[in-house]
């Protein structure tokens, strides 16, 4: 009975993708309880971040101009993705 269950379990995990997924999920979860990660403290304090919130540093204050540019780039080329913007599909040719 136990041997049969064991065989079934082995068969289930013989699927390479499933096994990889299991390992990927297990390693980080067990790591959390086993490894004591030294505590880090933020090295840029909130009062030091005024430069990052300056008008010149703001990205996409106007939403559409940059989206329109990205749309033109993606329609006229094959590359897409990883630009941080999203859109809908279109048959633009």
């Amino acid at each position: 009975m136990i041997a049969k269950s064991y065989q079934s379990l082995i068969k289930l995990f013989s699927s390479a993708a499933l096994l990889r997924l299991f390992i990927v999920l297990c390693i980080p979860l067990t790591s959390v309880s086993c490894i004591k990660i030294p505590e880090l403290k933020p090295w840029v304090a909130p009062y030091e971040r005024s430069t990052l919130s300056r008008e010149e540093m703001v990205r996409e204050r106007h939403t559409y101009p940059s989206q329109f540019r990205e749309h033109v780039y993606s329609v006229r080329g094959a590359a897409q993705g990883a630009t941080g913007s999203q859109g809908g599909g279109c048959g633009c040719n």
Partner: protein
Amino acid sequence: MLQAVREVVVVVINKVRTLLDTQSLVTCVWSLLLIIGMTLSNTVMAITLPKDKAEATYHYYDGGGVEVTGPALFVRKSVSDNVSVAASYYVDAISSASIDVETYASPYEEDRTEYSVATDYVENDARLSFAYVNSDESDYQSDTFHFDYQEEFFGGLTTASMGYSSGSDDVLSNVSDFKDSADHDFYRLGLSQVLLPELIIRANYEHISDTGYLGSPYRKSVVNGVLLDENLPRTRRSDALSFGADYFIETWSTAIKTQYRYFSDTWDVKANDFRLSATKSYKTNWIIEGWVRYYGQSSASFYQDQFTSVFNYRSRDKELSDFDSYSLGSGFEYLLQDTEWLEKPSLAFGAEWIRYQYNDFYQYENGDFNQNNNKRLYEFDATIIYVSFSSGF
């Protein structure tokens, strides 16, 4: 330098691909982000809703015989302390007499209308976003759902994000009873990190899986001077990885923003693009921006300007050919005075010039593909212009 970066990125992507499939990769990266989050959660700073905003934009594109103009409207309003809703309306009025259209069909005019609704929910250090986008053309309908999750760690210095989008398209033809469909799945991960009081860096990864009809029912391939319908594979998987940095130079009062992206797909297209911009304030009301961009790609394995025999997969889509493009743009923004109803209103104007230079796509004299002696590599210039008004309220 670009070549070296590209090679490193290729090696990393290929290594990761051999170790894990895509779903596992996403799970793995997100699990690692959770560990970092748990470790640093005692220094968490609350994330805020995006500000209430209204925007009206007019956009214009002219290049390669194609003209696209139209308005776009966007409004976002918070409905409680942690929920906001948004809606948008976008129109492309297209007039096309491109080299493809002149070769295979007749010039045409049509409209594309896009509607979207979105909502954001924030709780402590996390933001959950949902959006639905509908795009409608006479020969192409698309519905796309977006789900995004963003979380700040480490006192707001680190922001991690992950997202998934699912798109479903119907592809039609205005000149025949052709009908087919295409589905798209997008998986994305992002990370931004404040490194210095004046420096923030970003990395984004996106995997896209396309299935179904991925070509155009109008486009043809050329086999020994004869036009035949193009035939593209019905699956495509792509990976894109981008890195960026924004740095503020105090002595020049100027922000320098850079972004590099590497793209590769199962159709053998490999692309690199790099963007550099400088943004500077002038007096108290003006913000001036200038940028340059380079984009280059290799051709798809089944692309040829002219085929010498009938291959199963064949295309003469110039967007799948080997080409380079160069952009130069500038924009101006004028910050208006706050009023009783408007908060930080501003008016923006910008223009961009783009040159496309094709390395394996030819323009034939009088469209006659047998005139091999009277052909030249195709190139064209495009212009983008926009005017936009945006304001908080």
